[in-house]
């Protein structure tokens, strides 16, 4: 933002470590300070957080646990404190160098969070399924009659054999929606079945630019 917002005397361009910024108004200066804060937030918190989020969305839970230690947690907690963002260094724009990738970094992080949400929903389903299985199998293990019946049913009188059955070919052709089709074509199948949101967004952008689909079509699914 370089537009003057008032006609105050003394307003002049000022070099801020390479950035020429109109500072004739407090509002403009505040905007720059906020950009500085966004950059600090990225550097000190979100960059690390995204690394952990990516481990989560990728199903690398063991690595996540290994890396996201209690110490890391405490560091992130502290790094997000107001003292880091509202201080003299920020007010005076000391050591501030504008990073033009800040916005895209945040955008990328948003995708990572969305993918993480999909993963969380998937994990919730899997967890519920597992809990149900556990509960029922525990019911068998803790009841003598059920346990005997289970063993009788599962482990007695069985010999491997081919049985009475019919095999038949499913002949219907499979056609994916364009965004799934192009995603698989470009990136292949997603690990653990959760599509990467950022990659999907790129795919959708391509399809819309090509005129293959509209935004409305994508939203309606």
């Amino acid at each position, binding site marked *: 933002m370089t537009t003057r917002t008032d006609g105050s005397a003394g307003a002049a361009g000022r070099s801020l470590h390479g950035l020429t910024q109109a500072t004739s108004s407090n509002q403009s200066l505040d905007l720059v300070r906020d950009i500085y804060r966004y950059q600090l937030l990225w550097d000190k918190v979100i960059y690390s957080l995204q690394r952990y989020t990516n481990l989560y969305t990728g199903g690398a839970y063991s690595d996540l646990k290994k890396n996201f230690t209690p110490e890391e947690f405490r560091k992130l907690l502290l790094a997000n404190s107001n003292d880091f963002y509202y201080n003299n260094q920020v007010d005076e724009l000391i050591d501030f160098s504008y990073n033009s990738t800040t916005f895209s970094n945040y955008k990328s992080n948003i995708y990572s969070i969305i993918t993480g949400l999909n993963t969380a929903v998937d994990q919730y389903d899997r967890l519920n399924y597992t809990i149900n299985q556990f*509960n029922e199998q525990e019911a068998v293990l803790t009841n003598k009659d059920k346990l005997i019946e289970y063993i009788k049913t599962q482990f007695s009188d069985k010999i491997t054999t081919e*049985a009475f059955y019919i095999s038949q070919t499913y002949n219907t052709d499979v056609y994916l929606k364009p965004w799934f*089709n192009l995603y698989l074509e470009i990136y*292949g199948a*997603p690990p653990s079945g959760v599509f990467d949101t950022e990659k999907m967004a790129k795919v959708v952008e391509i399809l819309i630019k090509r005129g293959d689909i509209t935004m409305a079509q994508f939203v309606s699914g």
Partner: protein
Amino acid sequence: MSKLSLFSNASDLRKQQPKLYNNNFTDCSFAFEFIAMNTSSTFNVSPEFERVTANVGFPDVDSVGILDVPASNFSRLFYIKTNDLEFIRTSGIGLTNTSYGVVGNPALSVTDGVIPFHAYPSNFSYAYSKIRGGYANPTLDLADNTLLYQDYVRYTAKSITGGYALSDIFSNEQALLNGVANMDPLFNFNLSTLLNNASGCENVSANITPSMTHYNFVISCKTLVDNLLADAVNENTNNASSYLRGKQFLADLEIQSKLQEDANYLNVANMSNSGENTSLVNFSGFSTKKYWVIFHPGDVMAIRLNYFPKNGSGNKATNASGNLGGNPINDRSYKIYLNMK
């Protein structure tokens, strides 16, 4: 959580089972697994029977479903012939000269057999079997609310994506769902054909060997009858319903015996009245003492259906546009419990 209360039972049933067993899953007295037929996916070669090695149930399957069917459809499927029903009733074992057969045909003096798979008004709709275990997508929202055709399309989605198991990834979702249902007539046709081919087969215990033609059908009948008889005379105090089912079987034999006596009486009466042999039914001699295994509501008969992907099991999914990712799609097997109503 309660909606999944049958999960583990149903999941267990995906595994190979004894040939005849009681189970809590279907709330029925018996589940009987055929051990009869196998056919190729192309249906243009002869059925193969050589792989049956023992008198037991199915191998493990991927998923389990249940489909309600009329019990009456199956009561002209298996039969025995014996000249000493009283011995069978009291001892609970078949005589050595008891014959076991399937469907029957005029050459065997068995003319009223019915193949169940084409007797139902619109055939059996396996695609509408309710899935009870081994869900392609086991989320709570879908569990207890999934039919076979939905499950198979979700399985296809899961195979292609490596995990995403919803059919909304397909642009031809409805066609895919319909495609599963469209397989039902062919399943019924082939089951009927195989049973029809076996309808000329019947044998006594000593001659029921794997080398005999249509062994799998005949041994299926013998297995079922043996187990029903054993159940009838071996009361399990822990399972009254099982014992009752065996008793019901004996009662069914008794009813048929009485009907045969009455028919024989009428037949003789006809002969004496008209002076000619009507030959409606000849009950003199061993070969015509025939008794059907009557199925009742609550009985369950299991069959196994295998769905092969178009490109063959284990191959990558493709369509006219090319590869769909690169993940393989395997065949998917369903054990369908035909739940007699």
